[in-house]
């Protein structure tokens, strides 16, 4: 299998909007061809600054990056010609939606015949056909956002930066766009995608970088992040019959000793006596132990279920952990701050 091609790599990239006041610092991430990299973080975490840095709209204050073989500082036009950018702020020209698309393609030097057919494709794909003759500012918020994405896809590119492209979109439109982006990524387009909607990052992104207070605090697949930072999950065990009180007390004691917190009331009727629910950060590793424990006591287990780890709980776990570990060293955005210690997954392998 051929080695994956790294199309973007940053090394300790940072941007200070004033001397010693950093919006992003020590960013070291990579992006492979055909990969979708998500940037997650709270408001002001540095996602938009990262996008603006990587698209040459802002000059790096420190560190560096190589994008499509170009040095970020000197790549200029040759580099930008291979990028696509949907910025967070809406932009438009004072012509119809359809003309906006073809005019933007013209700006990028797309031949007019190609532009026309691509405009039709985008109008169809982004469900903007009925609005083609309307001016963009007369569109609804969701339509305007779809228009922004559609317009950027009018030209060819190798890396597409999408800064919160799905804000204001309904679930159907969002899914449609995500599916399209996933297809484009499979065809070789690399995508950097920022969002606050964790579920869509989970659906779309191959890897996710979590930014917090201007630092990358984690970089991994969604599954990896959930496994590492998902935190306590709820486990429900249902036995074939009610547990005798001493047996139940023994089980509770064992679970508590293993760090679980019990959720089931002590005694609440026969059905409740057959169930036990608890939360544990090691939910999955407790399951084999539980099976053995029940087997040793000749107890039949009807059902065991573990709550699926969510990216949201992982995200909250990561932010909480970073806040606790970082203290002043992490420093809120805009404060002078020393680097945090290296974070697992924070560097491209």
């Amino acid at each position, binding site marked *: 299998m051929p080695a994956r091609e790294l199309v973007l790599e940053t090394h300790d990239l940072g941007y200070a909007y004033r001397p010693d006041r950093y919006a992003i610092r020590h960013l070291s991430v990579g992006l492979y061809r055909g990969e979708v990299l998500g940037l997650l973080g709270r408001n002001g975490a540095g996602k938009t600054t990262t996008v603006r840095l990587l698209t040459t709209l802002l000059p790096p204050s420190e560190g560096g990056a190589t994008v499509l073989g170009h040095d970020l500082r000197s790549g200029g036009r040759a580099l930008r010609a291979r990028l696509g950018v949907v910025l967070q702020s809406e932009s438009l020209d004072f012509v119809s939606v359809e*003309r906006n698309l073809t005019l933007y393609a013209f700006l990028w030097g797309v031949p007019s015949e190609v532009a026309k057919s691509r405009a039709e494709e985008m109008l169809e794909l982004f469900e903007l056909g009925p609005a083609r003759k309307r001016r963009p500012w007369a569109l609804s918020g969701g339509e305007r956002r779809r228009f922004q994405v559609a317009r950027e896809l009018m030209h060819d590119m190798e890396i597409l930066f999408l800064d919160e492209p799905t804000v204001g979109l309904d679930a159907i439109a969002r899914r449609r766009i995500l599916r399209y982006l996933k297809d484009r990524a499979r065809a070789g387009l690399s995508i950097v995608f920022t969002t606050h909607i964790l579920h869509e990052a989970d659906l779309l992104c191959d890897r996710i970088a979590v930014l917090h207070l201007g630092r990358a605090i984690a970089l991994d697949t969604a599954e990896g992040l959930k496994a590492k930072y998902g935190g306590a999950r709820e486990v429900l065990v249902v036995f074939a019959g009610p547990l005798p009180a001493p047996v139940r007390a023994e089980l509770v004691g064992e679970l508590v000793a293993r760090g679980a917190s019990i959720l089931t009331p002590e005694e609440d009727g026969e059905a409740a006596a057959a169930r036990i629910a608890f939360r544990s950060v090691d939910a999955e590793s407790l399951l084999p132990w539980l099976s053995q424990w029940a087997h040793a006591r000749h107890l039949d287990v009807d059902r065991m279920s573990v709550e699926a780890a969510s990216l949201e709980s992982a995200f909250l776990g990561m932010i909480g952990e970073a806040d606790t570990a970082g203290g002043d060293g992490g420093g809120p955005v805009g404060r002078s701050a020393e680097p945090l210690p290296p974070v697992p997954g924070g560097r491209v392998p």
Partner: protein
Amino acid sequence: MKLPPVLRLVVRNFASNLDPLTVVIRFGQPAVTIIVLGTMFSTIISSSVTGGSSYAAFLVPGMVAFQMITGGVVSGNLFWLDRRWSMVEQVFSGPFLRSEYLGGLVLTSLLFSLVGVGIMMVVGLPFTGLPALTPVGAAMVLLTVALGSVFFAGLLIAIGTRLRSANAYFSIQSFLQLFVIFLSTVYYPVTSKTPKVLALVFYANPLTYAANSIRDAFGGTLGAADLQGLGILALLALAAFTAAAVAFRSMDLGPIQ
């Protein structure tokens, strides 16, 4: 065939932001001024004040000179709207250099001004007859308007890079337009009766040099003073363009209101 980036930006400037109503008003206003104001005041203002010609014929070269403001304002406004609607940032994220974007604006301004010159001359024909324009005179008219439009475009763009409010920009732009037009020789000449302070202000105004030079070119009486005026205009244009270019380099691209 792919056009050079500057020309693509110029085409986009014309296609995107210049709706027909704007164009009609921009060219229509000075044309109507020639017809209405020229006709009305020709009966009031003596030809001795206007150098022997009717007031309408006096006004025509003034309105030709006025086109440099029209072009400058068009570019200044285009730039402001691009900033307001985040198109500056979007364009800069594409395969364009800041200098090309600035060049595109200035070229748009030039083209707009020169089209305006043609329209004003045609509208003014019934009042001026065929102007006694020599090839040098014609070149003088075009160069004067071109330099003037670069000056006003550069000035408004430089101002536009520093402001973050539409109200502030348009207030300054309106004030500047009014001030520059009425304190120049576009509408009336500087005569011996003009208060000295006001005359000084008139001669500090680039539009005065432009209007005087164009008037001389129309009358076939170009002289050293006109060349001097052209030189001043060239210096001012260079200064304004430099100011815009410097301001562009450090411009904040973030969203504005």
